[in-house]
Each structure stands twice: as C-alpha cells, then as structure tokens.
C-alpha cells in the first residue's frame, strides 16, 4: 500500500484547472462548436404515447429548398430483438429502437425521423412536412396500469413467465432463509411506497457537431459522460467502424448519469454522411424533458423484522421500477444496495423491470439505490419508533462492518459505515433544539461504486513540467484531483501539472464517467504511470552519478543519493533531468492502461431538519448535515461539492420534482418552470462531514464519492417530516397539496 501521509498536495483545495475558463465563459461546450459549411439537424418526434408506424413519407420534406438530408429508422443499423448485443449495461437492441422508432413509436417524443437543413428554421419546417401514418394504440404510463392483465403490451417478444408481458426482467438477491428469519422476529414493520420518475436536470441540453468525410472518417464533438461510449454506440448504430470515428469530448454541463447513452450522435452522423456537410444538433429543454432519460418511478414494499433488543433478523424488499418504453431500469441498484448498510442474516430482495409508454430511463446518480433506500430507511425509522430506540442506535446495532457478508454477494473489507453513524451522533446538529413545527430525521445509504477500464499518459515536457492525459470527461473536478496526486508523487508544485481529457484517438480506452469511478480508476493509472517516470528519473540520475539506481531516491521534485553511502552529489531536479533527456535516452513519459479493481462501496448517513407550514403544506429543509465515508478526500472542495450536489438533488426528488402527465399521456411540465427542481433559496447551507476511512485497495485510499450522497436524502426528509407532524408519508414527492392532504386526513 502506498497511502501517503504528510501530504503537500493531496487534501489541498487547489484551484481547478478548468475553473477560469468556466467562470469567464471561455470553456467550450458542445453547442459552442461550429464548422464552415455546417448545417442543422432537427428531429421529428412522435406525438403519441404508443402507435404503430404504418408508413413515413419524407418526399415533401426532401423537396423543401435548403433541406440536405432526411433519415429514418431504415438508415439505422437494426439489431434483431432475439439477440442481445451488450455495450456495458446497454443493449444495442434497445438503443437502436430508442434513438429512432422502428415499427412502433413508444412514447411521446420518440424520434421518428431526422432532417438536416441549412437553417434551424428550415429543418423545423421540413419536420412538419414529413407525413407519418400512425395507427394509434392503447397505452399505459403508470406501473399499476402497465401490470393489469389487459394492459397494452409494448413488445410482444418480451415474455414473463412464458407470456408476453410488460415485465422485462426480474432480479433477486438472497441471503439466509427469509421465512425462518421472520419467525424469529418480535417486531415486524411492512410498508409500501411509491416514487415518481425524476430527471437528472443537467443545465446543458444534449448537443453535438459531427463531420463525416467522403471516406467515412468521422469526427464527433459532443457532450457526454464518455467519448468512448459515444464512439462505440455511434459505430454500432451507423455501421462505421470505431477506428474511423474520432469522438472529442466537449466540456460538459452536467450529466448525473443522463449522458451515459447517446441520443443525437448516430442521427447527426447519418445526416452528415448523407448530406456531406457537418451537422449540428442541439436539443431544446423540452426535448430533454420529453425524450431523455429520467430515472424510474417506482412502487415497492419493504418488510423488516427485529428482536426486541433491536437486532434485525430478516428483511424483505420488492421493487417495481419503471424502465420506460424499452427494458433496462436500475433494479440492480434498488435490489442490491437497499439493505447493504446492515448486517442482516436473512434477506430477500427482488426487483422487476416494468415497461410503459414513457421515455427510456437513463442512469441517475446511484441508479436505483435512492429508490430502495427511501423505502428501507423509512421502515427503519418506523422500526426504531416501534422499538423505542434512537434511529442512529438502531442502525449502529445492525451496522455492516468489516467481514459482513452483503446480501448482494461480497464480504465487506474495512468500511466506514459505523464511523458515519458515530460522527452523525456526535455532531452538534443531532442534539440541537428544534422549534415548533420542526422535525429531524436521519437515514443512511450505500452505493456499490465502480472501477473498470482507465488509461493515462503522463509526459514530462522539455522544460520539466508535466502533462497528464486521461480518458474520462471531468464532471466533478477530477482534473484538479489528478493534478494534486501527480504533484504529490513527483514532489512538485501542482501548477506544474496540466491535466487534459484526451479524445478517442489520442488516449487509450477509458470507460464512462459514471459509477463514481473516475478518480478511483484514473488515480490508479496516473500513479502507476508516474511511478514509472520516477523510476526512469532515478535511473538517469544514477547513470549521471555513475551509481546504482537503487542508491537514488526521488524527493521534493529531484533525485538525491539515497544515503550518505551512495556518495555525495548535488540533487538533480526534474527540470535538469528533462533538459538532459535527449542525451540520456530520450523523452520521458509513461502510459498505463488497466481494468481497475478494488472499488469499494461507499456509505453515508444524513441528518435533516424541516419546518412545516401546516396550513399550506409547505415543507422547508432548514438544516442538513451529510456525513459520508469518502475514503480519502484528494480534493476536499470537490468531495464536498459532490455531497452537496447529491443532497440538493435529493431534496428536489423528495419535495417537488415529478413528471405531470396530461390525459393524452404526454408530459405536461417539460421545463424548469413547472418541473420544480430546487433553486438556491429553497436550500439551507448543506453541511458536510467527510469521514476518511481509506480504501485499502487503492494507492491513495480513494473511494467513489459522487453517488452515495443522493441515496439517503428522500428518507431523511420523510423521517424529518414525520418527526415534525407525527404523520408518515409513503409516496413522493411530498409536495404541498399532498402534505396538506395527509395532515388533514382523519387519523
């Protein structure tokens, strides 16, 4: 292990390398890119929730002056439904049907055709001229409606228990004997919950600019959470080989999981190929809200049984998650994460992937886990109440620790969950007095975190500075954290380290920015690359001094004799060795590519205070403290930023965010005015406590930190409202009309 103490740069709040560009407006996002000869692409979208497409006539659109290309599903590579082709967690059978409707339009907003024209206005007009002959079909949106026996089946080829069904998948996690477990229980709480689909709400709408040369060489500028994902999916869906596609990652204006799949790139590529002109596409907010992935709405039932002393003996969860119109809801997160904070001998957790006529879900911060945790952590609160135990005590008594076997499989190594509970209990917030109509709630959460493929190249410049190239788009401040690590290892000022994100042609394969993997994985490859460079530097100093490389140590940015026995030499700095490079064996640099392993899960425990206006049903969060085991805070400012961002999103999910549907099955609030994400004044200062229990499997102790902070929030808010009012809430959002309804409901 290489966990460094007495750090100079690790743990510093250094200025992020991309900061000045972002605050001065110079940073280039995908929509900022333009090319000579560029034309505009627009999408014709289905107005119907469910309709068979009998025919599409594009002739009038094609005849409109200024129109350069039209594409429909015929232009997109078809992946037959009977054979799965996976890219990460995405199945190309569903992706090819999501980017463009094939035989059926499956939700309002589903692309049906795309046009490229010399202006946006002409492209929009051309879309209006496309004639689509729809056979409108019955549809369903809500889980209950999709699961009735006579519900319209979206896909005849999807079968559950032998029959065509809207249940596209089932996942089960099991430990011990659930029936035996409940027999031992003295107190059992069982409750059912619902949550609404919520959108990731990134500020930057999806955008891309794509140029295809006559020889098929394709260049993509786009906003995504993974340029390699963009390359691969575009290759699959257009038939252009990956080696002919160069995907250049733009700065990204937020993703939160929603930019881990493509919507525009395959269409813009085909339009560019057909027209011979670079094609730009930028979604409107309305398109983002109607057609890009929110996370699932859900319906779940959780049952937990304990002995009178508080020890939990059995826990059971059933989670139905909306997939949207094509399979793939995050049941793994709900099923796998929900009970993981606890050491429970008997667990049965089952998830169902439910299809309905809404846009296909995409990943959203700890996909599935917040949905499961909401149900489990609310039941834990009721259990504590029934047992007359402090809710943190109940959690401490049952907390997962080193050696606990999680129901989803692994045995936990040294983890920091207990520390988060202890820190929460000791925090002044937990014992601060509460006023009238105020209440306090707590909740915990777990997320798997991820490792996976990462590549880095570290080069020493001729003037003795450092350029690091990695392959993951930087969403959360990873460039700053990588600079801290590299500066620490080399013993130089962090300002001498420049960190860049390479494109698919200039850096090796790197998996998505997702799963809270980026710093964990890139720190590993950057550390190994930097270690190689230090070895080279020591060898070169040894050569100059004519001593053994083992007799040279690297310290404070220079080579030194390892001990007085090695001889007496003036240190050779990085700059001096860089200057001598041409005579000493050539350029200094190293690249490393790994499939990283050892990403350990993360835990958080949150404390939330609310104040309720019982006449209006308004809930305001008045104090919030998020405690999290962050492994090692390489750059504390950005760790805190992740924690605060997760909490802010969770408060929105808890209180006001939801898709509202009209009678025609269309989203009625496709914009930020009526899709009510919290604004700054809705939130108190979100306090953070970083508990550092270093990951023993990582050179700097890094754990993923980006997703855990969303997991506990909705339950923490719900439990706080209960504490204020004495009423329980079993569905989200806890918006004013619903809160008032519960307050006024007769006991």
């Amino acid at each position, binding site marked *: 292990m290489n966990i460094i103490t007495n750090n100079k740069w690790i743990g510093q709040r250094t200025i992020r390398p991309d900061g000045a560009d972002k605050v001065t407006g110079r940073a280039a996002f995908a929509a900022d890119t333009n090319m000579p000869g560029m034309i505009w692409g627009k999408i014709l979208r289905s107005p119907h929730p469910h309709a068979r497409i009998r025919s599409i006539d594009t002739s009038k659109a094609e005849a409109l002056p200024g129109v350069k290309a039209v594409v429909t599903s015929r232009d997109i590579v078809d992946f037959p439904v009977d054979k799965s082709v996976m890219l990460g967690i995405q199945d190309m059978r569903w992706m090819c049907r999501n980017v463009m409707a094939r035989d059926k339009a499956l939700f309002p907003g589903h692309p049906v055709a795309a046009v490229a024209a010399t202006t946006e206005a002409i492209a929009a007009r051309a879309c209006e001229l496309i004639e689509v002959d729809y056979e409108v079909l019955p549809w369903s949106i809500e889980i209950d409606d999709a699961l009735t026996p006579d519900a319209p089946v979206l896909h005849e080829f999807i079968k559950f228990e032998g029959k065509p069904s809207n249940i596209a998948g089932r996942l089960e996690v099991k430990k011990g004997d659930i029936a035996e477990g409940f027999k031992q229980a003295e107190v059992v709480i069982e409750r059912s919950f619902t949550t609404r689909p919520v959108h990731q709400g990134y500020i930057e709408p999806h955008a891309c600019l794509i140029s295809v040369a006559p020889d098929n060489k394709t260049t993509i500028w786009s906003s995504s959470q993974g340029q390699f994902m963009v390359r691969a999916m575009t290759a699959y869906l257009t038939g252009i080989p990956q080696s002919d596609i160069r995907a250049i990652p733009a700065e990204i204006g937020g993703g939160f999981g929603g930019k881990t799949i493509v919507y525009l790139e395959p269409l813009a590529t085909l339009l560019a190929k057909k027209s011979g002109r670079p094609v730009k596409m930028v979604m409107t907010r309305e398109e983002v809200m109607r057609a890009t992935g929110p996370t699932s709405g859900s319906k779940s039932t959780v049952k937990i049984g304990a002995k009178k002393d508080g020890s939990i003996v059995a826990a059971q969860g059933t989670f139905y998650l909306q997939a949207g119109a094509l399979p793939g809801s995050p049941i793994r997160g709900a099923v796998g994460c929900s009970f993981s904070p606890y050491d429970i001998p008997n667990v049965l957790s089952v998830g169902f992937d439910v299809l309905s006529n809404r846009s296909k879900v995409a990943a959203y911060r700890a996909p599935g886990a917040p949905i499961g945790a909401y149900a489990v952590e609310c039941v834990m609160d009721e259990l504590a109440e029934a047992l007359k135990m402090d809710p943190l005590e109940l959690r401490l008594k049952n907390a997962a620790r080193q050696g606990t076997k999680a129901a989803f499989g692994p045995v936990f190594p040294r983890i920091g969950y207990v520390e988060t509970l202890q820190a929460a209990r000791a925090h002044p917030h937990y014992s601060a007095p509460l006023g009238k109509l105020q209440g306090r709630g707590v909740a915990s959460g777990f997320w798997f975190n991820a490792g996976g493929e990462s590549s880095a190249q570290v080069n020493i410049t001729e003037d003795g500075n450092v350029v690091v190239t990695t392959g993951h788009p930087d969403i959360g401040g990873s460039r700053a954290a990588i600079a801290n690590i590299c500066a620490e290892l080399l013993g130089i000022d962090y300002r001498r380290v420049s960190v860049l994100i390479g494109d698919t042609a200039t850096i090796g394969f790197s998996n998505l920015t997702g799963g809270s993997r980026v710093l964990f994985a890139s720190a590993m490859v950057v550390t190994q690359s930097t270690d190689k460079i230090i070895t080279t530097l020591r060898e070169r100093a040894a050569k100059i001094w004519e001593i053994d490389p083992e007799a040279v140590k690297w310290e404070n940015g220079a080579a030194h004799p390892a001990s007085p026995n090695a001889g007496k030499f003036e240190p050779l700095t990085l700059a001096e060795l860089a200057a001598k490079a041409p005579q000493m064996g050539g350029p200094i640099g190293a690249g490393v590519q790994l499939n990283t392993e050892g990403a350990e899960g993360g835990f958080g425990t949150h404390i939330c205070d609310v104040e309720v206006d019982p006449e209006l*049903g*308004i809930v305001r969060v008045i104090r919030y403290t998020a405690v999290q085991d962050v492994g090692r805070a390489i750059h504390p400012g950005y760790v805190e930023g992740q924690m605060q961002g997760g909490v802010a999103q969770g408060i929105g999910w808890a209180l006001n965010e939801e898709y509202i549907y009209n009678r025609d099955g269309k989203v009625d*609030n496709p914009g930020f*005015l009526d899709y009510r994400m*919290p604004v700054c*004044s*809705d939130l108190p200062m979100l306090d953070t406590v970083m508990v550092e229990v270093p990951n023993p499997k990582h050179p700097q102790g890094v754990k993923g930190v980006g997703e855990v902070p969303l997991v506990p929030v909705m339950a923490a808010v719900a439990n706080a409202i209960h504490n204020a009012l004495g009423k329980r809430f079993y569905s989200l959002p806890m918006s*004013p*009309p619903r809160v*008032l309804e519960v307050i006024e409901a007769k006991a």
Partner: protein
Amino acid sequence: MTDIRYLAPSTLNEAVSAFAAGGSAARILAGGTDLLVQMRAGSVKPGLIVDIKKIAEMTAIEQTADGGFRIGAAVPGAVLAEHPRFGEVWPGVLEAVNLIGSTQVQGRASAGGNLCNGSPAGDSVPAMVAAGAIVTVQGPNGRRELPVEKVPAGPGRTNLLPGEILVSFTLPTRPPGSGDAYLRMIPRTEMDIAVVGVGVSLTLKGGVCSAARVGLGAVAPTVLLVEAAAKALIGSKLDDAALNAAANACSAACRPIDDKRGTIVYRTKIAGVLLRRTAAIAARRAREN
C-alpha cells in the same frame, strides 16, 4: 420562419398607429420577459414588434398633485423598487411587482406586461386590484380609463380593443391608517408561478376597518375582485370571526382548475389561508401609518 419587423417609437401616437396598422400579428414589447419566452416556445409568432420602452410616459413614475401615483406601464420592477416614496405608500403593490421572477427578470419585467399578458396568476395584478388602480389605455380612438380588474378577459386575453396600448396605472391617494399587502403560495421559494395569490388593501379608523379591497389570483380564469371578502372585513376590528368570514368568501369565490400547478381542493383551501395572512400584514401596516 417569417421575418419580424421591430419598431421602437418615441411617442405614444406613433406607437398606437404602428400597432393598430400591424393588426393581429403585432405585439407590444415592454420588458419582453413573457413575450420573448413565448416566441422562443413558438406559441407566439409576431410579424411586428412595437417596443414601448422609448416612450417617456410609459417609463415614468409620477406622484400626482393629490398624493396618488401614476406608474408607466413599462416601468421595470427594479426601477419601481428604487422610487423613494412609492414603497412606503403602497408596500403591497411593490412587493407583488418585486416578486416577479428573479433579480435579472426584475430589471425588465413590468406591471403593464404582467397585466396584459393575461395570466390569471400574474403576481402584480391582485395587488393592483386590491389597491383600486385605474388604468389608462390609448388606442386609435383616443384615451380611456378603466378599473384594473376590467382588463383581464381570460387566460392570455384582455379587454383591450384592437390597437389599444396600456399606458399607465393610477393609484389613488391614501387616507391615514391604510395598508396593503400581497402574498402568494408557490411550492418553491422563488422562480415559480403563483398557485394562489392574494392582495389586500384596507384602511383602519379607530381600530375599525373602514375600507377594504381584496384581489385574488390564480383561482379563476381571471384575477378576481372579491367584494364579499371586503364586505366581511369592513366594519369589523379584523377579529378572527371577520377574518374567517373573509377567508370563506375567498374560498367560495374560487373557480379554479386542476392543473400541473395545483389542485382545485388545494387552491380553494389555501385561498382562505392566504387571505387571513395577507389581511393581517395589511392591518399591521395600516396601524403603523
């Protein structure tokens, strides 16, 4: 997309004749915080835009000889807030105008635009109704005056005649012992549309309410003047019984719809809650005057 003509005349007469000549494709532009948003959404496609911000009368705030105020229809919220006297006399109207949008929106948004946009949820409108504002409009047939509550005709519609432009709001003089207030319910703390908005203006004489007006927003196709609520307050000492009666009158006046912004049940109930709270603030202010 068709071309849009843009005019920014410096006199009202020029504006009226251009606007009238433009017919149904013409739109007045004040702050543009509704109009530009609607154009971007494609719901309004004007052929002519007449910007009224260069017309002195439309952007002026005057205190009239009798102590009332005349506010140009295009005066932005931020400018009204900076007026040395207006907020002291009409704190409720000012807080209503200043609730519109955010700091950025306040730099542009006007009470005239808020009224002419025709939204039943416009924040300044119930406060103006409670204040008893009279509006001056000018059209091809000259000037006329009408009470502010007569302007809205329904969601997105007004009773202005073709070619008519809203020129100004005139607020009456304030007897001593007067106060006004505006409150709205929104699920968030800002950047939201009123689910219900209530404006109350009243005068107290020896602790007894001698005059009152109540404006109620977002609960019917237009902002309402709730005379029954005012009646319940007038003659009372604003005790619980009077406030509850006024609250019930507000709830009874509601003819709301179920929509993405609120349910019928919810809107009807909180109209009364807000009336009680708003009247209490207005009464406190009246006692301080």
